[in-house]
């Protein structure tokens, strides 16, 4: 602002930040992007071909996508219902619940896995109780269903925290005005409620999916490497005991990043199609 000679020494203060950020955030990603194309005898798409043709890696990608999508949709639905009810709840209960979801959103990763082993593991408290009541035969926490249950559990608090501002912003006057004009509850949600919430719902869903796709600590603590997911495979290729294949890990990691980017692009595309946003 005051001429360049005054500005340049100040810019030196940015240098340490730029160096560390480049070395520990940009460089690792760049290494992944480059080495994914590095094969024994030069460059090529060999690793991607191996991943796409291998049933094992295809299964990992499929399961990651399936568990993420299902748990995100379940989490989003439960979170939306909770927020809707919270917006209609007065008094201390609402304040407690918001504080409590904040609290539980800190409960993730390895501790969460251990808590679920105590609760729903083979000899878990809930498993035994439900077996005794004859409600279930047995429950396998270390299966797809089990993982979806855990994932959904950690998606709920995040969904509530992200959605609550939007749902609390729905004004009761709008519903009153709509019903004065003859709209039923269904028509209100169809034409007013959901269109207003649509961007928030889509945005939250995107974050939940990304959160689930990248999740590693919980599954690793639960099943070590015996359940086939993308993050588990990537980590195992660079830190397993034998057969380290960093370049193959890079290719799989790049696919994960691209899938996350695709989810964001789809969200943007859906958002642009919705008339509520397009009007502006």
């Amino acid at each position, binding site marked *: 602002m005051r001429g360049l000679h005054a500005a340049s020494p100040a810019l030196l203060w*940015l240098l340490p*930040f730029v160096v*560390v950020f480049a070395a520990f955030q940009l460089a690792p990603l760049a290494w992944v992007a480059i080495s994914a194309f590095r094969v024994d005898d030069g460059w090529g798409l060999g690793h991607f071909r191996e991943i796409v043709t291998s049933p094992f890696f295809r299964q990992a990608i499929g399961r990651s996508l399936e568990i993420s999508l299902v748990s995100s949709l379940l989490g989003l639905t439960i979170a939306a219902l909770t927020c809707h009810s*919270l917006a209609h709840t007065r008094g201390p*209960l609402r304040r407690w619940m918001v504080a409590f979801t904040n609290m539980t959103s800190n409960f993730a990763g390895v501790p969460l896995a251990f808590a679920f082993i105590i609760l729903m593991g083979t000899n878990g408290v809930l498993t035994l109780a439900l077996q005794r009541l004859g409600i279930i035969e047995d429950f396998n926490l270390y299966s797809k269903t089990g993982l979806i249950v855990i994932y959904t559990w950690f998606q709920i608090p995040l969904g509530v925290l992200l959605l609550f501002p939007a749902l609390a912003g729905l004004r009761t006057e709008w519903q009153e005005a709509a019903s004065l004009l003859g709209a039923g509850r269904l028509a209100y949600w169809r034409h007013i409620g959901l269109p207003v919430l649509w961007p928030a719902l889509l945005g939250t869903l995107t974050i939940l999916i990304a959160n689930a796709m*990248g999740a590693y600590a919980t599954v*690793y*603590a639960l099943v070590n490497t015996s359940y086939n997911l993308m993050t588990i495979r990537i980590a195992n290729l660079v*830190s397993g005991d034998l057969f380290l294949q960093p370049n193959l890990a890079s290719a799989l990691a790049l696919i994960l990043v691209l899938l996350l980017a695709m989810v964001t692009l789809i969200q943007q595309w859906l958002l642009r199609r919705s008339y509520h946003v397009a009007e502006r």
Partner: protein
Amino acid sequence: MSQSADTVTMASGPSSTARPRWRFDPHRLVVLGVFTILALPLVVTLGYALAGHWGASLLPDSLTLKWFVELWATPRFQAAFVRSLLVAVGALALSLVLILPVAFLAQTRYPRLDGWMNGLILMPFAVPPVVSSVGLLQLYAGGPLPLVGTPWILIPTYFTIVLPFMYRAIANSLRSIDVASLMDAARLLGAGPLQAFFLVVLPNIRVGVQIAIFLSFSFLVGEFVFANLLVGTRFETLQVYLNNMRGASGHFTSALVITLFAFTLVLTWLGNRQSGQDLAKESAS
């Protein structure tokens, strides 16, 4: 937090005397139902940590604190605790030194820098830790900077994951004190830029920075992926210790889970209390 909570309770006091609120209300039922679902793993783990023995019955047979005493007396746990603290303190110190000047310059001299930073800080969200680890493991396993396997790799890596949060918190507090006018005033009074930064700006954003530190601290103590993949058992932090205790008694690991959770709760509570006091101060002035 407790102060503001009291005032809210008092404000809602008169209306809560209305009776019909306690009749059947589907919204209350939904909230309580979800509350139960979210509370269940925590409550059961707490119960397990406090139970002398919990066999095939619905409730534990006896209550005891012996698991907590045993855990806290374990040298391996104490060492892991100290290591987690050291890494988190180191990472936060580095983050402050690196981020403060950038946030300050973005809010004073180079407004366009703020836009750039808002883009940059999205990166840690787009790149999961597992992906970063693949690159970090190769780049720093040997060569000029052989950091893998030592705690030194965690400090700059943790800087990258607290960056979004720290930058926003610091930038917001700088904006809320109108730092550009403050710097102008300091210059008019004869202070150099560095003097103004340390004597005028820093004391004014202290509370905002403290909140960011407490919340980042609890986040870092809970970090597992980088700690396990980049360093592992060679420098066992709390989360890695917990993971390695897989074979131990369920009561013992429950006591550990509860201890860790209580620790993060205290940290977030300290952070929120700060923000509560900050708000109270602002509304008073």
